[in-house]
């Protein structure tokens, strides 16, 4: 079977490589407009931020004689009658199936003076102005960047935030300009937007909202400043256009295929008009809508390979979408953790109303909102808490059950808390509490050994075996020796706090569990009526429901 793929970007390259692996009989031709080997476009903003090296972007590509990749070759027409693709050199490429993976292009706003010639290719932009869509753009931006220089970033969507923080991390003076009042308005509500704005300002970024760029100034065909719709003038050597992308549909549209926002495809990724033509990645518009994120494109590629592969074919039915997470948006910004996922209006099928709780902490630069339905996380926004962002993302994509009360999700309880506190001083422990976990030796037994004449840690170890395993309790044994001897000298009760002064004593198992350095809490079964240890983590976090306004200055946990 002859398969032609147009576009050798993130999705097209993976599709070709995976198909070659699964179907040895496929003869694959890939036409790629870019001169480079396929690379990780997602990491371009990290390259701009100086976090990733441009040489580390190369992506896996097909390594098989079945696959012929034509680099730097643009497809200019699809001849559906003859089932051939025509390239810019006039060569024709016959296909049995055609896969469009043409991605998307940066949207270039109409700002007078920005285009030096009316050709829509961004090469026609005045020097100092660039979108961030490919490697050449990234190189151009890095060349213009430098400590102390000034930059305007136009558009405060995900990419705008990444570029603004990245340039700030390079020491530039950055103004982030957004035409709406709300930053990332597709994902953030006003509270979350305000907190994000605060975080950006703390990084030294000037945020101008509700304004647009209306013009530029230039000298010697180089950008020198940007004029905004409020009349203000912003000197700048660099302007990065982060004003959205447009799916690359021209080829498909010219071939008479249905295109709306993107190339319209069904659940099977095929175009309704021509079952031999498919679209995947940023250029496609599937029934559930396009996210513009690579996870969705890669999942589409995987499903298409699976549906075509003789070995994996599951019949005629389209392969179902992979794990959730296609709409998880993670801002890769230096110094700002921000992730949003899911949509409330797409919550599960049951009649149960979604529950939503949020923590809003403007002063602390933190915001977390979670939406839970039928025991699963269906949407969330997290700002300023890297670990909570990570654990909620995992819970969302894996659809693992969440705590009964969603409030617990606000305080990062889905990963274990990490080794938090220090153990109580050994002198305050109860006699029954285990000091040496490796050998199960209690504080009482150690004190007894000291009384019986073992006056240093070595002697105590010899007498009780305490400290002869991992050895981490040796300091505590030493302390007990000193304290017990001192107490004996003073004639006071040597072992443990006096009963009168002691607060209510927890049962031994719980107490042992509290000793943070204690390996493996002793496992004495708790009496059935012992106070439950459940409910830990997060219950003291101030929260408000989504309808209420944010709590202004919550206490941090």
């Amino acid at each position, binding site marked *: 079977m002859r398969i032609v793929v147009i576009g050798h970007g993130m999705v097209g390259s993976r599709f070709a490589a995976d198909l070659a692996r699964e179907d040895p009989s496929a003869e694959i031709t890939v036409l790629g407009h870019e001169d480079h080997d396929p690379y*990780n476009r*997602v*990491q371009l903003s*990290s390259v701009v931020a100086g*976090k*990733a*090296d441009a040489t*580390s972007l190369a*992506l*896996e*590509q097909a390594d098989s004689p079945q696959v012929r990749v034509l680099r730097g070759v643009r497809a200019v027409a699809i001849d559906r009658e003859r089932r051939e693709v025509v390239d810019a050199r006039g060569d024709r490429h016959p296909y049995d199936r055609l896969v469009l993976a043409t991605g998307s292009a940066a949207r270039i706003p109409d700002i007078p003076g920005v285009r030096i010639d009316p050709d829509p290719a961004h090469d026609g932009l005045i020097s100092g102005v660039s979108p961030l869509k490919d490697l050449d753009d990234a190189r151009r931006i890095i060349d213009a960047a430098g400590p102390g220089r000034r930059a305007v970033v136009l558009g405060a969507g995900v990419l705008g935030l990444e570029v603004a923080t990245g340039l700030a991390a390079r020491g530039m003076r950055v103004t982030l300009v957004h035409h709406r009042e709300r930053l990332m308005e597709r994902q953030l509500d006003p509270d979350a937007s305000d907190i994000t704005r605060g975080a950006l300002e703390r990084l030294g970024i000037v945020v101008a909202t509700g304004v647009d760029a209306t013009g530029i100034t230039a000298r010697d065909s180089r950008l020198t400043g940007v004029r905004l719709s409020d009349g203000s003038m912003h000197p700048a050597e660099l302007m990065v256009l982060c004003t959205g992308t447009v799916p690359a549909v021209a080829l498909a549209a010219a071939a008479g295929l249905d295109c709306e926002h993107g190339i319209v495809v069904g659940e099977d990724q095929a175009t309704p008009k021509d079952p031999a033509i498919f679209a995947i990645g940023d250029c496609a518009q599937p029934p559930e809508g396009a996210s513009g994120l690579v996870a969705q494109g890669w999942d589409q590629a995987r499903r298409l390979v699976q549906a075509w592969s003789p070995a994996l074919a599951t019949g005629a039915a389209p392969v179902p979408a992979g794990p959730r997470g296609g709409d998880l948006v*993670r801002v*890769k910004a230096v110094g700002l*953790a921000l992730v949003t996922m899911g949509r409330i209006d797409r919550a599960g099928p049951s009649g149960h109303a979604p529950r939503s709780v949020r923590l809003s902490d403007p002063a602390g630069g933190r915001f977390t909102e979670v939406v839970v339905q039928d025991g699963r996380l269906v949407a969330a926004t997290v700002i300023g808490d*890297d*670990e909570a*962002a*990570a654990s909620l*993302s*995992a819970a*969302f*994509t*894996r*659809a693992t*059950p969440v*705590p*009964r009360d969603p409030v617990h999700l606000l305080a990062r309880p*889905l*990963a*274990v*808390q*990490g*080794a938090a506190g*220090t153990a109580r001083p050994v002198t305050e422990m109860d006699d029954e509490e285990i000091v040496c*976990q490796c050998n*199960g030796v209690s504080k009482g037994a150690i004190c007894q050994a000291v009384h019986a004449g073992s006056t*240093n*840690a*070595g002697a105590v*170890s*010899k007498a009780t*075996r305490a*400290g*002869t*395993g*991992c*050895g*981490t309790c040796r300091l505590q044994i030493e302390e007990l020796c000193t304290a017990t001897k001192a107490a004996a000298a003073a004639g006071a009760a040597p072992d443990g706090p006096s009963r009168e002064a002691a607060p209510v004593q927890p049962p031994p198992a719980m107490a042992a*569990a509290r000793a943070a*350095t204690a*390996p*493996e*809490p*002793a496992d004495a079964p*708790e009496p059935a009526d012992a106070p*439950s*240890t*459940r*409910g*830990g983590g997060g219950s003291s976090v101030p929260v408000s429901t989504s309808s209420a306004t944010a709590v202004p200055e919550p206490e941090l946990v």
Partner: protein
Amino acid sequence: MPSPSTSSLPGTPTHCPYCALQCAQTLTPRDTAAGADSARAGQDGQPPLVVEGRDFPTNRGGLCRKGWTSAEVLTAPDRLLMPQLRTPDGGFREAGWDEALDLVAAGIRTAQQRDGADAVAVFGGGGLTNEKAYALGKFTRVVLGSRLIDYNGRFCMSAAATASNRSLGLDRGLGFPLADLGGADAVLLLGSNVAATMPPFVQHLEGVRSRGGLMVLDPRDSATAKLTADGAGLHLSPVPGTDLVVLLALIHVVLAEGLLDADYVAERTTGLPELRTATAAWWPERAEAVCGIGAERIRETARRLAQASPSRGGRGAYILTGRGVEQSTQGTATVTAAIDLALLLGLIGREGSGYGPITGQGNGQGGREHGLKADQLPGYRLISDPAARAHVASVWGVDPDSLPGPGVPAVQLLDMLGRPGGPSTLLVAGANVVVSAPNAGAVRERLASLDLLVVLDTVPSETALCADVILPVVQWAEEEGTMTNLEGRVIRRRQARPAPGQARSELWILRELAARLGDASGFPTDPAAVFDELARASAGGRADYSGISHARLDAEGSIQWPCPGPEHPGTPRVFLDGFPTPDGRARLIPVEHRAPDDDVREQAPLHLITGRLLEQYQSGAQTRRVPSLLAARPGSFVEMHPLLADRLGVEDGEVVLLRTRRGETRAPARISEDIRPDTVFMPFHYAGEGSANLLTNDATDPLSGMPEFKMTAVEVLPVRSLERSPA
């Protein structure tokens, strides 16, 4: 440190019977031990030997609770003292050795006459001495002529072994002395809970903890993870089954941020471009949504490792893997990624840095080197390699063509038992598979379908109780031999007391069976002589022991292999001068993440992970017979987070039902904040109700045969609610 090691007693210096740390101990008969009441020895529950820790490079005099109490198993009330034969009513009766051995030999002959050599299979254990492992492998290949032998070490080290051999050309466990860890600036422990499983190990982490460089990857806030508290390091808690993603992201960061040791990579490795492209797609923000560990934490981990690496002027860094990351259907890939990371940072084959797997069983290392593995001959040779066959056959005095080819890995072997075309007779030595194998319920059915099951054990283990013939064998304090510890160090095990009753060494049993099956001379019973033969068989192999002997070990204490000649001092650190690969370079190998075989789903939304407890060892056959250990850990349980318990409506101690695709069982809940709320943990030491391996997945890693013990999708239900609702 306080050292209970300096013993004034005329004791026997030996090593602990249990784990691969092989802590040095001294055994003294109770009646000669100072202050001991000799009249009570061995009678009133007092063990017959007094155990003391002994100073040694690994344990520095320390022992854990299991080691201290090890002598109690010697006089376990149900210790097997006579051969036992199954009676028609399903019970057992005692028998003399001749009767029992004749019966076994006859059974073997009948089966093989009917169905050929492979009608008889052998299943060994990673607790057997080198001598016994060697003899068992030889017996299978020479006397039985069967290709079907494997061992429980398959459940332990196979993924790490496969990956090490593939990437580095050699698997010696730790390629450096354990004590080297003490000088490092960073240690990354992946899926290993040494603080609970081998506590004296932790002494070697003191230095790195004081420098804030201990990093532990574990879904639980385990005893080892807690060692990172208070500035001693970092704890990374991944979603179970996603360890490989964490490693791919760490590699991604090292490459993206240019943290690699470029000179080392250029001189000593191949494969960088392929590794680069394979990890380009795992940027930390993408990995984060899969593994649940924050992108910044991933970067921080990579940077700390890099700062500690020699090329950046650090004191050194180590990456160590344990069963937590290895017992997976992508176990080999995961270890490969760990090795890739270590290679990129220039850690392997450099003094003060390195990669190593932490072996679990006492002689898991030696067992796989000397013949218990399906595809191997002594000296870590491949049974499919004609030169290896010729060499070993010449030592054994047989025709190379008479040796069988490679067998099949453990899980597959167990699944073949009693099936058409599969073996109808099985010999088990040193393994308790009905507790320790994955999907243990199915294993029990397979054993029941055999014509003849022979189990060699010291106590009536759960597997022994399934047998037709149980043969009583000696314990560690009743025999001479050698073990190879987690750092490839060959050490001496010594006899401190006579064998009780009619218990015999496996070496004697194999000789007797061999004689009955027509091989009268090939099986010496003197362990020193067996070792000498082993040494010759290993000569020129990857694990070359040819310069080692019992006498030399007695004189020098211990020797790390390879040791190719009597004058050779042994090899504390491997790879210093290159890698034993055709081009002398290590291979950077790209790997891909697939999901676990049985990933969470609507009907089984939680992750089940399993592991060991401080107070128990393996299937518990030994440690459950020590009263103080049993009292500390009387039975199975399910550890769960308070938030999960709350969602399920389960109280602490309440019995819950666990259900997976393999089976179901019940166990009491133990509520603890030390575990992720999307995950439950069970210890695997217990048999019967609450036995974790009734639930685990027997899907295996295609490269190593390692089963997926560490991640099974599970449904957990309170039993109370089931009883309330009508069926």
